[in-house]
């Protein structure tokens, strides 16, 4: 059913806030979504928990639909991390609803916790960088694929105290090179097809993720699986830097289980947990097996 004028204005206000956060403040998409949903709660005129829950769901649907249409906003990524960020926020809300019986108390608690969650999410990039940078050793060579801001944060933190070089695959290579040049790191851009050729010269692989799935595998830019399989066969560790709000409640068994519309030119692929050595998250450094343990705890 088409939205009422009041709903429509609320929707556009929320979306404005969201896109502002993404473009101006360079926040990760799920973080911006969490803050946008927080705005929904603040502006909400609902008098019951059910009403508030409905508004949150509506907000999530609007965000997903609108982001899918606006190309530049998602920087070429899918809506996967947006959806998982929203889901996590909804879970927080539901848990708070169950704890409180009085609506006003509940709403207040929701706002307090929501703010804390948003703050924690903003800080997760830095926390990951702190945990991950010791894995990049002085004098090493790191292969990166895709243009993950979390991975970049890790490299930036490592560059503060170590000297190392980076190999970047060409699909995002130029942008990555520009980012890293500011840090004073030597970058070599290579063709995607040459990954196997250069793998013997690198010491480790550092990736971001659009989503971390239930068995500890990751969904990331197309070509990630190629890099991971190649790295495993040459015994190079594969590290994935991903915030906890990227944990998605999906369990793909095969590539075809991914939400992909253009089946001949998929933007993402799924890397099974067997090819991943460690995940750097704001919850700690986890093995792929530990991810499912964490998910069981997060979603219970």
């Amino acid at each position, binding site marked *: 059913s088409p939205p009422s004028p009041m709903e429509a204005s609320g929707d556009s206000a929320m979306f404005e806030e969201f896109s502002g956060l993404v473009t101006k403040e360079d926040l990760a998409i799920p973080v911006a979504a969490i803050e946008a949903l927080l705005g929904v709660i603040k502006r909400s005129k609902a008098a019951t928990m059910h009403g508030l829950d409905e508004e949150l769901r509506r907000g999530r649907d609007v965000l997903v639909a609108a982001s899918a249409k606006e190309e530049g906003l998602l920087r070429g990524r899918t809506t996967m991390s947006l959806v998982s960020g929203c889901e996590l926020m909804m879970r927080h809300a539901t848990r708070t609803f169950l704890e409180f019986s009085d609506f006003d108390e509940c709403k207040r608690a929701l706002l307090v916790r929501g703010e804390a969650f948003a703050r924690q999410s903003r800080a997760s990039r830095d926390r990951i960088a702190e945990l991950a940078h010791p894995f990049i050793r002085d004098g090493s060579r790191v292969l990166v694929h895709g243009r993950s801001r979390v991975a970049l944060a890790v490299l930036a933190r490592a560059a503060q105290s170590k000297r190392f070089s980076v190999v970047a695959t060409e699909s995002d290579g130029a942008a990555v090179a520009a980012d890293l040049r500011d840090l004073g790191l030597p970058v070599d851009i290579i063709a995607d097809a040459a990954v196997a050729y250069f793998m013997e010269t690198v010491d480790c692989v550092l990736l971001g993720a659009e989503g971390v799935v*239930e*068995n*500890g595998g990751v969904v990331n830019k197309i070509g990630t699986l190629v890099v991971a399989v190649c790295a495993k066969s040459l015994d190079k560790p594969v590290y994935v830097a991903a915030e906890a709000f990227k944990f998605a*409640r999906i*369990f793909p*068994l*095969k590539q*075809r*289980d991914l939400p992909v519309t253009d089946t001949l030119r998929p933007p993402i692929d799924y890397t099974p*947990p067997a090819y991943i050595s460690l995940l750097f998250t704001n919850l700690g450094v986890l093995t792929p*097996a530990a991810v*499912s*343990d964490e998910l*069981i*705890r997060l*979603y*219970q």
Partner: protein
Amino acid sequence: RGRPDRRKAMAQPASEATPGGAAGGGEAQGVPGKGGASKKPTTKAERRALQEKQRAAKAAARGEAVGGGGEKKAKEGSAKGPPPGKAVPEKKSVPVSSGIVGHLPPFARQSMLTRCPRISSEVHPAILSLGLRYASGEVDGANMRCAAMLAAFKAAIADYRCPPDVAVSRDLDKKLKSMFQFLVECRPHSVSMGAAIKHLRAVVARLGPETTEDEAKAAVVDAVETFTHQRLALSGRLVADRGAEKIRDGDVVLTFGAGGDAVRQLFAAARRDDKRFRVVVVDARPALAGRALLSFLRGLDLEATYVLLNAVAYAVREATTVFVGAEAVYSNGAALADAGTAALALVAATHNVPVLVCCETYKFHAKVQLDSLSWNELGDPDHLRADDDPPDLDPSRLHLRFDVTPDKYITAVITEHGLVPPSACAALLRELELGTAQPDP
């Protein structure tokens, strides 16, 4: 020296019962086994005479034993009969497990009932009939056995009367335990039955000393109904729905043997969603339980193929996914299932076909099992006889009913909480025991 050699007697169960007094192998070895009281004969002629005497005595005793009903065990001695009121099984037909499965209870061909007719008067008819159906194999499969047991308990508890001056909870617990024990004697219990009885006994243990008989009975009946509804029926439906989501149009799905409750419901759910897919049933002797699954699939109007386990490497090449049921899932992520499942999982994993084990969480067991022998159930070895077995050969037959699929061949376990990788089974079990896990609709 005067006592018969028990070890020798037990190692040769097929041989006739040796009478008390002479060691079974004494004669063959040419060493007189009689009591050390008599002087040992020294000359060859004397030794010969002694041997003849022993042989005659043995033949006479054997004739006596056969005439008196061959039910006496050697170790009882010829003078004493078996203790009164306690029937002793005929030694010929009760093989003793030996070798690598020596630690497992042997398969008992004669049911508890024919062995101990007196017990039948003490046992409630519902439990009695269930026990017989367990022993005959009429009620089989983890879910079926548990559901049937709970239904029988419900009937038995309805007729339960607590004796006066006894705490209801204590007596009720004893009653539950004895009923369960009877069922175990008919057939070793499954993990599903173990989980149910543990739950019921916990409920009974929580009853206060002031509880009346009616309140206690109501509590138990309520516990039975809730357990059956939540952990079996509802969970089974959730498992089926989640599994059905993983089936797409055009898929070729492999399954093993009878499949089990969860797998059947899964196929039914996928069919209801109008998915077009094909099922290949991999089956194995001696049970050949896949034939029953075939008629079920025909009822669902699903295209089905049937192969035996030795053709699995051929069948797996066209497979998209493998769905199997399980008796239990252990905390190390390994799955206990009908013998043959592990072979299917191994071949599928080698061909990169995902293997999904459908198992409700009530069948999750806290123990760790690494191989298929440390615990198993022995089946009837006669089922392994084939029509073309050479008549002069009689090898010992080993019929193992279950096997353990290691976690590395399992892609995910489908539970009512969603798909869980085998590495997370311990965490899920922990959450369940803490009472914090709730089914996720």
